[in-house]
């Protein structure tokens, strides 16, 4: 590969300059890849980081690059009762209904829980405080913790938040909604979009490494490829379709 030769030349140069030789690949891969999650509503819209959100600066984590084709190690950031509230909440953002599985069946809670283990660790405190505030609001307005309410009463809580009758929960609602969408429509590698339910819902035809002119036609549906970017085999791994 072109880079290999360049790097070799470069290592020789470094040696000649009196420094230690440039590190081989293994060191390079261990060298920290820093990752931090961006926060709700912050999207890179062309030239500007729109809707600038700010979080306290702390906990910039280093981790090896997730380059392996193996699944992410399941882990949990939330306590069982927090997880229960989270699931009940995101179940109302994208519910199971006649249009198919909802956010919970699709693994969005799993995605969110795993995200807070590492990438969103700096934000965990404010998010779990939001979950607690949802429960507190559910108790005062509907008489029980959120997860113990009927679907109708849960919707009444979300309606109240969405119409700004619980103004301190607005930011939490936006954040939880955004993370639910990430969990619903992400590559299944990250724990969400189970059985490609999210991608099938919106007719996203899946990851193709080589896209033909035919695959880009508007007039003709493209067949869905059910395949994670991280699946070991190169081709069409189908899950239940």
């Amino acid at each position, binding site marked *: 590969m072109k*880079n290999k030769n*360049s790097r070799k030349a470069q290592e020789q*140069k470094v040696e000649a*300059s009196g420094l230690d030789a440039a590190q081989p690949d293994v060191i390079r891969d261990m*060298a920290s890849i820093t990752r931090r999650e*961006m926060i709700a509503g912050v999207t890179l819209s062309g030239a500007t*980081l729109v809707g600038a959100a700010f979080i306290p600066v702390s906990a910039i984590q280093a981790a090896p690059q997730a380059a392996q084709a193996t699944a992410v190690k399941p882990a949990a950031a939330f306590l069982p009762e927090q997880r229960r509230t989270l699931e009940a909440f995101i179940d109302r953002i994208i519910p199971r209904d006649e249009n198919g599985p909802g956010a919970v069946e699709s693994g969005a809670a799993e995605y969110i829980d795993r995200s807070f283990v590492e990438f969103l660790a700096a934000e965990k405190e404010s998010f779990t405080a939001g979950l607690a505030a949802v429960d507190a609001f559910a108790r005062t307005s509907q008489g029980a913790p959120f997860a113990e309410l009927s679907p109708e009463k849960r919707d009444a809580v979300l309606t109240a938040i*969405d119409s700004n009758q619980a103004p301190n929960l607005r930011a939490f609602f936006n954040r939880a909604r955004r993370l639910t969408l990430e969990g619903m429509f*992400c590559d299944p590698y990250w724990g969400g979009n189970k059985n490609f339910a999210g991608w099938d819902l919106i007719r996203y035809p899946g990851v193709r490494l080589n896209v033909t002119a035919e695959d880009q*036609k508007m007039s003709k549906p493209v067949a869905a490829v059910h395949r994670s970017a991280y699946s070991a085999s190169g081709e069409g791994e189908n899950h239940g379709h």
Partner: protein
Amino acid sequence: MATNLKPVDVAVIGLGAAGGVAVLPLARAGLKVAALEAGSWMKPGDFRPDEVHNNIRRMVTTGRKGWNEIPTFRTGPDQRARRFTIPPMMNAVGGTSIHWDGNSWRFHPWDFKVRSETIRRYGASAIPEGSTVEDWPLSYDDLEPFYDTIEYEVGVSGKAGNLQGQIDPAGNVFEGPRKREYPMPPLRGSEFIDMLMTGARKVNMHPHRGPAAINSRPYGGRSACVYHGFCDTGGCHVSAKNSTMVTTIPAALKTENLTIFERSQATRIVSDNNGKVTGVQYIRDGQEYFQPAKAVLLGSYTYENVRLLLLSKSKAFPNGLANNHGQVGKNYIGHWASRETAALFPNDLNIWYGALAQNVVVNDWADDSFDHTGLGFIGGASLTVNHEVHPIASANAPTFAKAPQWGSKYKAYLKENAGRWVGCYAQCNTLPYENTYLDLDPEVKDPLGDPVCRITSGKKINEPRASLYASNKAAEWLRAAGAIEVAVNAGPAEGPNLSVHGVGGTRMGKDPAASVVDPWGFCHEAPNLGIVSGSVMCTHGARNPTETIQALAWRTADHLVKSWKSIAG
């Protein structure tokens, strides 16, 4: 104690879009070059077709300099600045040219003389209040040969609209004259692109395919684009997209005159009592080094350049390097660019695949290509509609008041429409203002204890007006193309905060009291220090800045070669 290294001819700070280009003419001329890059080498196999990896978690990077130096932002001098959560740039050999979207434009001839042309056509009162805009000290024609060099060195796909004065409606009829056709034809078309071209022509606009630094056919020993749809903020797994990692840097290494120091973060540029720079102090794996050099080229991002100059104090420069006239950080420009127009179509668009640079552009409402009399603004915006929409981004769809933001009705709306909407990207001509500048944050520091860059960006009137005007034209275009719903946002009030098109801050000019670098890119006050970066720009054009940054970088490096004795002797 810093380890002193063997002197070299030129030390280059940063191997991204600009530094990665500048090393090539230097190395080809036989100068011994040491390049300091905070990141390390990546390879095509490191890249992933994954929205979470690329766009959500911004994992296409090596090293932590970008994260450690995230700037702060405020809208006025009385405010305490707050910090952003994600950095605008990545770190690696090749820098952010690895994950950029490949939109490779020349600026318009008007961009280089906004001040004099505006006064000539509309009178001095048409210059927006509070703007510090000056003409560039060079013209489009001066830069044309370097645009040409870049387009052929890195490989740009496109269609000329003005070939030595001959206008071709298949290309951009508003562009400045070019010497040659692009080295490759535009990227592949699609039914979606045809639909947009037809719509624009219906309302008498002049649509054309945007230029892309992506191979539409094999070029430069690299393969053609495979349109997989993970170009934006992701690296190219087949090296069809130009990054300096696969074009100019390997070419420079072949000369054996370039030495690359990975994981090497410049901490100070050192100068002597006569105001001459003597080399660069940097940290690599926790060790401090000093790299002596006869000339230094500063090639990192706008925020980093300003910060490093302000941190590099000495007897000759008590207020920061090349800052005895207080110009470092002034005339900073955050590019006024966003997706303000959204449109819903009655059918699936199938624009998941492709690239952001696989697009249609309308330039009728940019620059001074239309009469501004009575409009209350100068400049305008280019309008781009493109392929490459990822699933999570598509689910963040505007609902055009047809559905709530959650619940079964929202889910049904997404099912029907997530694949049926587009946003039109409006990029404005953007000017420098007195109320918009960079300095060092008094509170927030990086892990080395050095302050981060602080952005102050006050209210503007001209750019929001221009953006809204052009976005309403975009609405007209999208309706003509068949949209059933169109929404136009008024856009932000204070405008760009943290920008990936941040330019200015070390402006180019003839007057040392109003600029930092001379017309060739070398500091007035420290003549053997050149700056290769968007930070030398005097205005921002209505298009992506990278090709202009690269053309300027090549020109500055070329000037250093030709004037070696006078600059470095």
